[in-house]
């Protein structure tokens, strides 16, 4: 099959069309240059300035952040030192309290022991006294009974006379 196509005509542009195309493009460029060039430049300038400002702010923020970090590290270090000091003090205080509790407990235990010993001694003495008192009571009752059995009127009169004699002397 044979195609009837003007391949050469298709490969090379039409001169007129090309001139029109170029003229239209030149008009477009001219219009662009005339109407949009300055605002576009101004816009780009502004964007550039804004970006620079942002960059400066970011740099400044970065510096400040670094300073803050240094300060925070310093504070952290101090806080760590203080915490360690507090822990040490706490340990010492705890040790001291523990020693005091142990000492006091020992003293109290000693006191209780002494009191218990004294109480025991007292109870023992009381018991001894009670027994001795009972013995004396029984002995005195026995003596009284014996004397009552032995005493007669004559003996009683003799006692009265002795009493009178004692008063006189």
């Amino acid at each position: 099959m044979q195609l009837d196509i003007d391949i050469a005509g298709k490969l090379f542009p039409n001169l007129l069309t090309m001139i029109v195309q170029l003229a239209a493009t030149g008009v477009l460029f001219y219009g662009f240059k005339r109407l949009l060039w300055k605002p576009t430049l101004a816009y780009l300038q502004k964007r550039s300035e804004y970006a620079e400002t942002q960059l400066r702010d970011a740099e400044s923020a970065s510096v400040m952040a670094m300073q803050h970090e240094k300060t925070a590290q310093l504070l952290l270090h101090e806080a760590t030192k203080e915490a360690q000091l507090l822990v040490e003090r706490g340990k010492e205080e705890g040790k001291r309290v523990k020693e005091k509790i142990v000492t006091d407990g020992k003293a109290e235990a000693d006191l209780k022991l002494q009191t218990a010993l004294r109480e025991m001694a007292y109870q023992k003495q009381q018991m001894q006294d009670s027994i001795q008192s009972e013995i004396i009571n029984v002995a005195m009752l026995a003596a009284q009974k014996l004397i009552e059995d032995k005493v007669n009127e004559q003996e009683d009169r003799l006692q009265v006379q002795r009493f009178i004699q004692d008063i006189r002397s």
Partner: protein
Amino acid sequence: MEKAAARYATAIFELSTELKFENNWKSELSEINRIFVEDPDSLKFFSRSQITKSEKRELIKQVFESQIDNTLINFMYVLIDADRMNLFPEIIKEFRKLVNDKLNIAEGTVYSVRPLPAEEIKKLEQAMSLRNKQSVELSNRLDPTLITGIKVVIGNTVSDGSMKNRIRSLKEELTRGSR
């Protein structure tokens, strides 16, 4: 002590001082009082309103006329007329106190297991008088708990020569010694 009793006691005391009969009246009135104290019904007789005052006077006259001073009988008449015979023991107690104060006499009690003969009480009174440097009059009371011996109480002073006291002293000494 009723004020009335004190007034009667003072009156009879002043009269006895004036007549120098303190000791006599004291013993006579004490003897009458002893009868009333030992037999309280005899004193109640004088409080009975059914019996006239003249009958009460007559009884006093019959019982005491030959035994006590007439002034004391008159004194009792006064008490009967004033319906104050019920105060007789109190009056005599106060009268004895007044006489004792005036004559520097201390009254006391001697406790014994058996009744003491009068001569022994007398000896004891003499001995106590010498020791106390004042006349002492003692009345005898029985206390069988003494076992034997006597105890003399004059005011706040106690002289204890009883076996009970000796046993108590011995007991105290033994108790002290055992500790």
